[in-house]
């Protein structure tokens, strides 16, 4: 090994030592602190989990371990010693020789991080070739070897596909493979499974863990999901707004967290409201009857979907991407005309298209969206955002309208004086979502569709939103249809659960029954794929199911 890429130190020395790291970032032309003096130690072959909410500085710290800063960030103080080499003292050229070769990176979105213009194999080989470690043929056979170890289909041919030709889970594994291309000593995994469905997440987790063990690679595993980190890490460090909260080995951290903040993170996953009793003999608020629908003339996205939603009840519609959840929401709101079947509202049939619905029918069905960012007009102030439905549907104006807006802001726990004249960009993610809720209830609806309303939010913030929705439901007699792929959310808020797969309802029933077996095999798989806060969970799962019976492979066997 060349001198300028570091000498192999003895195994007893830590591989990576970061001391008193300070990183600042440029925000509105001023430098603000992102990381305030964090220490980090990592031994060879060890996996460190970095946990925190968005804005905690996890990714920034992870990239700093490679001596890398994104544009608009700078390391202002501290030292980073990797294998006896002071990274902050290296020239750009020497750092380049290190990156990819001895420290590699796996990004959150493999779809965005693979170059769409080149085949996977060429992107794999780029590192080993450019670092002068292997010949092309050697690199290709090594890639094939890695692909087969990671259970990728047709390992010899897999690399000759373009990124858009393989699934998300496969792509994420291919990215892990690419990180291993130069057999690095350290890999930074930056939320590698956050963008994936739960069943896909498992296969990626299993592949990553397996490969990290086989090569005895050290890793920093960044995630906001505690249960995932619990499967992967030897020790866990918790970050909050650029400060370290605490660090301990995984088992200790899960059982006996010391700090209040850590305990609150842990507690979120235990929030669950009591299930309300099923209703019988009542006319449901919304009745979905044998709905068939699709976006072109031939394919059905929804196949004979039927279920009722009763007054003051929450029905969670669960399924993975592509299962037809959002299409169902479009049919109910009248944005998509079903081919067959109908939607009944309080017993009477609703016109198929929203054009044909009366203003009152439109008023009583409202929607809250996943991305509050894009659902709120960035040019309008909070006052106008909330006032619009109130004036349009209820005919309020002048002082009455103003009072109504203030009432609504009180209901969503935002102080009117402070927030009423702000723009959406002056609010946090959770606050924006609250405005989305206020806008929906401003119309005084009886039924609200919540489309993945918490999935873009941190767990603590999401919990606040769920509690708010729960309170509003009992105060305003609302019914909710809760579209989600997150079973923790289901556990927290649902009364009834509908499981969807490929456009059909595979199982439905009260929440209490849904979490007790026996189930439809797909429900079983879905439930079983949600990581639990037990560090041995993945081991047990793999032992009981086998590596070939998880993720896509398991779904394929069901067909």
């Amino acid at each position, binding site marked *: 090994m060349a001198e300028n890429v570091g000498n192999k130190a003895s195994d007893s020395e830590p591989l990576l030592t970061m001391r008193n790291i300070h990183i600042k970032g440029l925000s509105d032309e001023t430098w603000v602190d992102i990381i305030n003096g964090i220490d980090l130690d990592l031994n060879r072959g060890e996996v460190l989990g970095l946990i925190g909410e968005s804005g905690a500085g996890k990714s920034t710290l992870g*990239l700093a371990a*490679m001596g*890398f800063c*994104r544009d608009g960030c700078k390391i202002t103080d501290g030292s980073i010693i990797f294998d006896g080499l002071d990274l902050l003292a290296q020239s750009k050229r020497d*750092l*380049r*020789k*290190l*990156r*990819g*070769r001895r420290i*590699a*990176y796996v*990004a959150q*979105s493999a779809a*965005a*991080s*693979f*170059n*769409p*213009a*080149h085949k996977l194999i060429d992107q794999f080989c*780029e*590192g080993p070739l*450019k*670092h002068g470690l292997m010949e092309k043929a050697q690199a290709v056979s090594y890639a094939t070897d890695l692909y087969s170890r990671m259970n990728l289909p047709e390992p010899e041919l897999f690399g000759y596909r*373009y990124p*858009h*030709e393989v699934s998300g889970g496969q792509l994420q594994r291919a990215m892990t493979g*690419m990180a291993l291309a130069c057999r690095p000593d350290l890999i930074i995994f930056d939320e590698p499974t956050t963008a994936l469905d739960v069943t896909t997440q498992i296969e990626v987790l299993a592949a990553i863990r397996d490969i990290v063990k086989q090569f005895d690679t050290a890793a920093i595993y960044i995630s906001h999901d505690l249960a995932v980190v619990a499967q992967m890490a030897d020790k866990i460090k918790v970050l909050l707004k650029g400060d370290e909260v605490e660090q301990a080995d995984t088992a200790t951290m899960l059982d006996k967290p010391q700090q209040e903040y850590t305990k609150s993170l842990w507690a979120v996953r235990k929030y669950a409201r009591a299930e309300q009793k099923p209703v019988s003999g009542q006319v449901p608020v919304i009745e979905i009857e044998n709905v068939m629908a699709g976006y072109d003339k031939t394919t059905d996205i929804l196949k004979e979907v039927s279920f009722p939603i009763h007054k003051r009840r929450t029905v969670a519609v669960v399924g993975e991407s592509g299962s037809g959840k959002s299409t169902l929401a479009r049919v109910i709101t009248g944005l998509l005309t079903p081919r067959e079947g109908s939607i009944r509202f309080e017993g009477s049939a609703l016109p198929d298209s929203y054009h044909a619905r009366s203003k009152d029918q439109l008023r009583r069905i409202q929607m809250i969206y996943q991305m509050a960012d894009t659902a709120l007009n960035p040019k309008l102030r909070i006052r106008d955002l909330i006032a619009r439905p109130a004036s349009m549907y209820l005919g309020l104006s002048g002082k009455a309208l103003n009072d109504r807006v203030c009432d609504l802001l009180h209901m969503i726990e935002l102080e009117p004086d402070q927030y009423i004249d702000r723009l959406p960009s002056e609010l946090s993610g959770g606050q924006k979502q609250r405005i989305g809720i206020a806008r929906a209830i401003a119309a005084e609806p009886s039924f609200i569709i919540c489309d993945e309303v918490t999935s873009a939010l941190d767990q603590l913030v999401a919990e606040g939103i769920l509690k708010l929705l729960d309170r509003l439901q009992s105060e305003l007699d609302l019914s909710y249809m809760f579209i989600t792929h997150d079973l923790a959310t289901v556990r927290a808020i649902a009364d009834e659960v509908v499981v969807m797969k490929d456009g059909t309802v595979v199982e439905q029933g009260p929440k209490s029954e849904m979490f007790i077996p026996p189930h439809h095999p797909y429900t079983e798989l879905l439930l079983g794929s949600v990581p639990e806060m037990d560090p041995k969970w993945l081991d047990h799962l793999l032992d009981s199911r086998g590596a070939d019976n998880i993720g896509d492979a398991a779904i394929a066997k069901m067909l």
Partner: protein
Amino acid sequence: MKNLAIMIIKRLGLGVLTLILLSLLIFLSVEALPGDLAQEILGQQATPSAVAAIRRELGLDLPPHIRYVEWLGGMLQGDFGNSLALKRPIIDLITPRLQNTLFLTLYTACIAVPLAIILGMMASLFRNSYFDRISNATALSAISMPEFLVGYLLIYFLALSGYFPSMANITPATPLLDKLYACFLPALTLTLVVTAHMMRMTRAAIINILALPYIEMAHLKGIKPSRIIFWHALPNALAPIVNVVALNLAYLITGVVIVEIVFVFPGLGQLMVDGVRFRDVPVVQASSLIFASAYVGLNLVADIISTATNPRLMRQK
């Protein structure tokens, strides 16, 4: 490949349709021009019967739709008709001119396109450096100056001192090297005119791409910045660049009348301007149609290149 073939066939069909619509438009706008060729030929003192006789001879007395169909039919068979003013087949007038124009276009493109793309890539690589700023400022100044001024400035500095000829009156018989030498100044003028646009588009397209996650990934793999620009960014930035190149090449074919006049260059532009001046309708129509075909054809080529270099379009599942 099948996708590409289908796309080319579709686009060719659309191109033909566009050209037919354009021919109609050209025909109608020439019809709308004031004046009359017969009057023009015979002068103010002509008797009405003489004018009528000439009109009959030239077929100008026929109703417009019949003349249009006859003209279009002739065009489709490669018969461009006769010049009314010069009484010669248009094809003989146009062919040498078109050759000259294409030669000048190709000459300019060979200098301007590589120059613009390389400058654009280097500007994006050394973003906000002095190189970036100077090349941007130079390109923008060149594009902001009227073409004739650029031409005369070049003549002033490079022709008066005797380095290059200021007249580019080439003939088909001129040997290639002499042609290149004679046309150097017009080609340089046009290069200065078109480079800025292509260079700035290349720079902007690549800078857009440089903000994407896969570029950060390449940095984190330890790849050199020059390779990142060439191998990671350029292939993905090709579509907008190719389109701007096509637009500029089309401009070189159709919009260089002023430069032709400055350098006394016998190109197609001058032929068309003369045609308009003498009410020589068939010549105007023929050259307009050639210009239109150049636009349509070059845009088609640009679309094919951007499709063929995009695996997401080429290899759809």
